[in-house]
């Protein structure tokens, strides 16, 4: 093992919030109480598409114990306005209508009214007394049916934005986007081999174990105080303020501990409703969403329909690619089609390529980001086509990937040229891995590989570090901590200052106390907020240089800071804590601060290997062995990097093999429970081996890339390739559940 230049980075300390989380003391939103707290319940539409003719809330209001009832009529009218949420954008009018329907319900589970009462049972019983008269409308949940000219229209005022031009007639297609490089027709003419296929993937949910939760207090001074489970307290503040039509300064968001998000806890659902209930009730209101409502009304990430075509020369060089991709946006425009288009060819250098993408409204919940949003669907298509090309050209699947892997200087179809990246290094690590070099034997068994790419983003982050009298530090930062980021940020600051991770108390601030910070998403926290923590440390050090010069009676320029954080000047030296203690007793307190907004993507790549066994009688696929490889740039806390890789891989396995929304003939979801949706349990998966590749990142002082998202991308195509290797049956539809695999095996016999 090479020697590391770091003292703290690369070690595996116990996380700062650890003891609270293993003793039950950590306060999640549903654990937070206020005096007089009311419990809320949201009434939701049983129909996928209907006009609201009338709502009679009188019986609910008359129920003993009920403190408030709200409907869409209590929500201010919000004008069309696009708000950036950090990972994607949203039209605030749609966001408001999604929180509470006004005139129309657009999916089963769409909120139509809400009740607060002394307890949740009373609220639920009272909500059942609300009479909503609906006028049923025809509905559509299938993407291709929704794109047809005669499809039922979700929005009469939705006109396709076709490459910047608005269409004349209303449609369910919100956007058509197009990316192109080179001359695709000429490219395919040069191809010796062309593969082309259609692929479909099902709607899947992020599946966080904590349901959405909120405590809202509309204070007498007009301020709305929210305690909530959010991936971004500042975006939550903005969305809530816009929907309530009050200033952002009139909303205080305190992020509680958050029980998973994966992209699904960025948009608000309950916050405005709870705030309006609280205003009407004159008391604080909490709402804990039911699991059924979580499935039916939040989150899911798009189903897709894709037609992808790739051409290669006889030596395996990819020469042309063409992709037609439609993702469902759910009930409102604004799915994740953009990154889908940008990711379909993002792992390979293809001279000529064209991508057309469509964002399509259907009568399902509004789709949201889910870990590398949009990338997993297209990888399912492209990474299987890579294997099909390899087979036709009689080249090893790894070799064709190595030959065409993007590297520094490669241009993506959507324009950007990659800086230094680590896909080749990931593939080399795969080639050298024990897994790849261990023969797989046995009937009905197969091995597959696949790669994956996710941009990673910078955005805005803020941090402040205040020095205690003993030289320990309180680190205040704005990124809600979903998976151990307090540790990864504290470790970077400790590295910067030359102290231990345990010398730092990291704390996630509320929106009144910490500088603006964008969402915990885009694999950005350890990268961008880590950069803020580093810069705050540097700011502190420069202040301390000035003060040390005064103390040591020399010029500021005479004071130097060694790599280990030791200050020296005028023949004197002091470690950070020693100097900080001296300075604390000799003048004003020290606070370092920084806010950053790196614009660069961090470009994360992954490559996975999987061995499967397919039961020929049932089509059930068992994962025998799994190895996830990923370029982390630099792994700050390797255990949590591995954890991201393992967790992402198992989410990808669930997406590949089991998870999907089932709809009945009336377009109602029929499996809205954990039992019926069936995410992977402990018994469904083996250990997930990990290999961390560290190629650094010039845009970060410690070379961090961010690791959260790439590991969900390769599993579906890697498993698809393994199933093919085992059975000679090519799966073109997710999930690859037993009935589908069994059926496909019968037809390919």
């Amino acid at each position, binding site marked *: 093992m090479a020697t590391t230049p770091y003292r703290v980075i690369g070690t*595996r300390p116990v*996380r700062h*919030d*650890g*003891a609270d*989380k*293993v*003793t*039950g*003391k*950590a*306060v*999640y939103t*549903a*654990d937070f109480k206020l005096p007089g707290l009311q419990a809320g319940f949201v009434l939701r539409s049983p129909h996928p598409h209907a006009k609201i003719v009338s709502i009679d809330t009188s019986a609910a209001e008359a*129920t*003993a*114990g009920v403190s408030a009832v709200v409907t869409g009529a209590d929500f201010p009218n919000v004008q069309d306005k696009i708000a950036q949420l950090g990972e994607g954008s949203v039209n605030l009018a749609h966001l408001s209508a999604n929180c509470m329907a006004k005139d129309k319900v657009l999916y089963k589970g769409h909120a139509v009214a809400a009740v607060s009462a002394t307890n949740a*049972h*009373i609220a639920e*019983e009272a909500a059942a007394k609300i009479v909503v008269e609906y006028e049923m409308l025809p509905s559509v949940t299938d993407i291709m049916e929704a794109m047809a000219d005669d499809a039922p229209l979700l929005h009469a005022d939705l006109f396709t934005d076709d490459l910047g031009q608005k269409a004349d007639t209303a449609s369910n297609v919100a956007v058509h986007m197009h990316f192109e490089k080179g001359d695709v027709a000429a490219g395919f003419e040069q191809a010796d081999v062309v593969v082309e296929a259609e692929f479909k993937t099902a709607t899947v949910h992020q*599946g*966080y*174990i*904590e*349901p959405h939760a909120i405590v809202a207090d509309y204070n007498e001074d007009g301020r709305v105080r929210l305690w909530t489970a959010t991936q971004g307290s500042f975006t939550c503040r903005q969305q809530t303020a816009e929907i309530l039509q009050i200033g952002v300064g009139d909303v205080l968001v305190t992020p509680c*501990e*958050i*029980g*998973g*998000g*994966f992209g699904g806890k960025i948009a608000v659902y309950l916050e405005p409703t709870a705030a309006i209930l609280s205003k009407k009730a004159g008391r604080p209101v909490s709402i*804990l969403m*039911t*699991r059924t409502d979580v499935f039916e009304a939040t989150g899911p990430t798009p189903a897709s329909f894709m037609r992808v075509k790739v051409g290669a020369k006889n030596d395996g060089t990819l020469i042309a690619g063409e992709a037609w991709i439609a993702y469902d946006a759910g009930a409102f425009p604004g799915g994740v089609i953009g990154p889908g288009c940008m990711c379909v060819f993002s792992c390979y250098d293809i001279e000529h390529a064209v991508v057309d993408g469509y964002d399509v409204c259907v009568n399902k919940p509004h789709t949201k980001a889910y870990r590398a949003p949009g990338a997993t669907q297209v990888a399912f298509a492209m990474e299987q086509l890579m294997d099909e090309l390899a087979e036709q050209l009689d080249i090893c699947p790894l070799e064709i990937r190595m030959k065409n892997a993007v590297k520094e200087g490669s241009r993506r179809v959507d324009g950007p040229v990659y800086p230094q990246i680590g896909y080749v290094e990931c593939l080399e690590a795969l080639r050298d891995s024990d897994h790849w070099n261990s023969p797989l034997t046995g009937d009905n068994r197969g091995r597959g590989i696949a790669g994956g790419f996710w941009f990673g983003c910078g955005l805005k982050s803020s941090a402040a570090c205040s020095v205690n009298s003993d030289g320990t530090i309180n680190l205040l930062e704005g990124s809600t901590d*979903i*998976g*151990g980021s307090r540790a990864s940020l504290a470790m970077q600051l400790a590295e910067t200052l030359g102290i231990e991770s345990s010398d730092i108390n990291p704390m996630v601030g509320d929106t009144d106390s910490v500088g603006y910070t964008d969402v915990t998403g885009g694999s950005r926290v350890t990268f961008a907020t880590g950069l803020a923590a580093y810069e705050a440390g540097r700011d502190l050090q420069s202040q301390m240089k000035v003060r040390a010069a005064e103390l040591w009676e020399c010029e500021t320029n005479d004071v130097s800071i060694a790599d280990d954080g030791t200050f020296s000047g005028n023949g004197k030296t002091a470690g950070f804590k020693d100097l900080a203690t001296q300075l604390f007793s000799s003048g004003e307190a020290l606070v370092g601060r920084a806010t950053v907004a790196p614009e660069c993507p961090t470009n994360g790549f992954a490559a996975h290997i999987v061995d499967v066994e397919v039961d020929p009688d049932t089509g059930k696929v068992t994962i025998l062995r799994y190895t996830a490889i990923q370029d982390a740039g630099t792994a700050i806390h390797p*255990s*949590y990097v*591995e*954890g*991201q890789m*393992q*967790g*992402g891989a*198992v*989410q990808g396995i669930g997406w590949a093999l089991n998870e999907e929304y089932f709809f009945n003939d009336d377009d109602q979801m029929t499996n809205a*429970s*954990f*039992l019926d949706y069936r*995410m*992977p*349990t*402990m*018994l*469904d*998966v083996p*250990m*997930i081996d990990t290999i961390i590749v560290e190629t650094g990142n010039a845009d970060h002082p410690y070379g961090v890339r961010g690791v959260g998202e790439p590991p969900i991308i390769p599993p579906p195509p890697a498993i698809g390739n393994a199933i093919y290797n085992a059975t000679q049956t090519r799966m073109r539809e997710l999930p690859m559940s037993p009935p589908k695999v069994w059926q496909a095996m019968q037809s390919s016999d």
Partner: protein
Amino acid sequence: MTTATKKIHVTTTVNGESVEFLCEPRNSLLEVLRDTLGLTGCKEGCNNGNCGACTVIVNKLPVNSCLVFGVEAEGAEIETVEGIADANELHPIQDCFLEGAALQCGICTPGFLVSAKALLEKKPGASEETIRFDLSGNLCRCTGYDKIVRAIQEADKQMSAATVDSTTND
């Protein structure tokens, strides 16, 4: 349907202490623990027994507290995540979860700790397959389970070693 339901008096033992509470017949043990007794370590993830985040031990058996009525606690011995640590000392299972980074968001962690404690007390030396089978009722969406299984295996080792030590000392 009536909202004014007569409350019932229940006497039970929670984490070794005798406890009395009043609850409506419809209140689940999960509601009682969280809302009446303030033991918010057990979490509501689904409220229908699918996720295991609310797992507590009732009379030595791990149960989903959302599927047990509060009134069923009468005379029972209940252990929750709040009772796992001994005074200020973490239980080996808790230590191993922290050392092994076996949690990310932490919402499922109390349920896993309680289930794992029940498992290891009943089946020390459990195989990986037994651990995975017995804890398949606890869902985790963050970790992929790898580090949870390893943490439980490590805790099992430490607990067995401690048992051997104390036996030797006797």
